């Protein structure tokens, strides 16, 4: 029985090996091209094993990008925006989620439905009026201009509502008997409990922020305020070929590095975040 199981597993892996390899090829190719000299790539992209093996090997593309270029500025912008957005969403969604799940107030049902309806409004349906609004406020080309629109999206609130509803009343009652007020209960009791749910919200938000394209494209018109996603799009434009394919690919690798590392480290959270966010969204 055991050997049969093993044999089936082996068969499965052999069957999946080829698709898995093909799946990885585009990424490998990008990494490989980024390690080859620009002059070579101008002539051929399939030097060694269809270009999948970086030979001749060079790190020049990375050195140049980091030494000159604005990649580090974009990287910094992305980091500030993504972290700012994550923190902002966490604050707003935990407080509001707690209120909706655990506190009583007049008009709760109506407000909840109103917020629920907000889930139907896609970013693309409001980016034009938001753009004119931010123009009037003078908020374009700034970090907060990139952060704030996403704070209004209620998905985080919903994940937190679902979580807080699941926490038993006992914990809260015990704390209240000890003389804790609502704020203390929220801060000392609920938030520590909510760490997994907060992680879910944080990861969803961070990934979204790091990869967002449309809003930065219209809000950040100055390259110094570009996020890495936007900067990369400007690099890959055809007229920017003066810098060479290797450099463009290297910028792609650099832009992807943080999210890939983040994913590999927090993989379990990411996967759960997607599962939770997906089924609740």
């Amino acid at each position: 029985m055991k050997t049969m199981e093993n044999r089936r597993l082996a068969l499965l892996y052999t069957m999946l090996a080829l698709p898995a390899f093909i799946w990885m090829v585009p990424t490998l190719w990008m990494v490989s091209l980024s390690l080859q000299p620009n002059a070579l790539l101008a002539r051929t992209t399939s030097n060694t094993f269809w270009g999948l093996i970086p030979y001749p090997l060079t790190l020049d593309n990375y050195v140049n990008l980091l030494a000159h270029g604005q990649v580090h500025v974009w990287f910094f912008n992305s980091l500030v925006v993504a972290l700012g957005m994550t923190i902002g969403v966490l604050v707003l969604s935990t407080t509001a989620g707690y209120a909706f799940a655990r506190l009583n107030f007049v008009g709760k049902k109506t407000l909840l439905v109103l917020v629920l309806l907000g889930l139907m409004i896609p970013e693309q349906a409001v980016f034009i009026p938001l753009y004119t609004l931010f123009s009037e406020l003078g908020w374009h080309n700034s970090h907060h201009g990139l952060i704030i629109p996403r704070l209004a999206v209620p998905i985080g609130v919903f994940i937190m509502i679902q979580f807080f509803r699941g926490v038993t009343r006992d914990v809260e009652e015990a704390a209240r008997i000890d003389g804790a007020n609502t704020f203390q209960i929220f801060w000392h009791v609920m938030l520590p409990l909510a760490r997994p749910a907060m992680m879910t919200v944080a990861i969803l938000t961070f990934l979204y922020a790091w990869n967002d394209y449309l809003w930065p494209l219209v809000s950040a018109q100055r390259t110094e305020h570009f996020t890495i996603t936007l900067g990369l799009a400007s690099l890959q434009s055809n007229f920017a070929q003066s810098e060479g394919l290797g450099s463009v690919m290297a910028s792609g690798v650099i832009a992807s590095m943080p999210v890939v590392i983040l994913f590999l480290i927090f993989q379990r959270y990411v996967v759960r975040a997607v599962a939770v966010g997906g089924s609740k969204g």
Partner: protein
Amino acid sequence: MFEQFKTDLRWAGVRQNLVAWVFLLPFVFVYVAFLIYPFGRGVWISLHDWNLLAVTFNPDAKTFIGLDNYLRLFWGTEMTWRAWARPVLQGLCVLAAVFFVWRYRIGELRWSTLWQCLMVLLLLMFLFGWAPGEGGRWFDRRFWPTVGNTVFFVAMVVPAITIISLLLATALNRETRGAAFLRTLFFLSQVLSVTVVTLIWQMMFSARQGLVANVVREFGGVPLSWLAEPGFAMAAIVIATVWWSIGIAMVLFLAGLQDIPQEMQEAAKLDRANSVQAFWYIILPNLKRTITLVVILQIILHFQVFGQAHLMTQGGPNDQTQVLVRYIYQTAFRDSDLGIASAMAVFLFVIMAVFSAVQFMVSREDEQ
């Protein structure tokens, strides 16, 4: 004594309300100011002839024109009604109707819901019957084809992603290191940003430098310029999108598979069912809800496609990959026509809202 108690109670009530609002206020303020208000403002802009640059330099340069922008998009000259004026859109309506009837027949849908759905579809069928007749033309010749392209894109991407990720999830739903590694591998592309994905695939499909071309050349073929070749440009975007986004669907299916009781699968094994039979009779029926969820989520997500078309093909060749959000962006920021762009955004919202409503209905029926 009793009066005192009542006052206390009232005070407690007020206090509780106050406390609740302290918690709510930050979010509600941001929500109203940056989602609800902009949305209303978008509708308002869509009722104006509003040139972005002109209005910036002279706020009075806008004129209220009522529903003209919508008319410009949806209507044309010499409009006549024929039963099958637009077979693709109308065909989709018929397909949807068949789907709903099927769900009703297998007891997944209530009679009243079915009835409502069919009424809406019938109305759509009727509206789609209007098209420019002899000598007429659409006011905006690009709008409906753009909607069509977007629908086509969704119709290609969603089934592909659903099927591939379902098969992968089923195969990789086990607690071995190998499976974990492969799961990571297939999910990894999901975390890349749209610019990286398009950068990679733009190069992959390049006729001169692309990997696909290099391989084709190796085997003596003549490489195609995928991104400029009619038919292939859309295929290229679909392939890139599928590669990019099977991860989320796969994870949702994995979560769904975890919920299938272990005993069921064991029972199937004892009955000597082979894996195909197990997949067909155990896994599929139990994943029905997840599949519906994944499909609707993907439809909502991919209807908003922008980056792939904007960066890989610029909507070409001949608008074959022009999609709705890119058209909105171009109308607003290249042509400065905020009014029409906003009208299209409202149209996009309506479509998204319909699918969200369907999703809501499906999950509600499910719970009952």
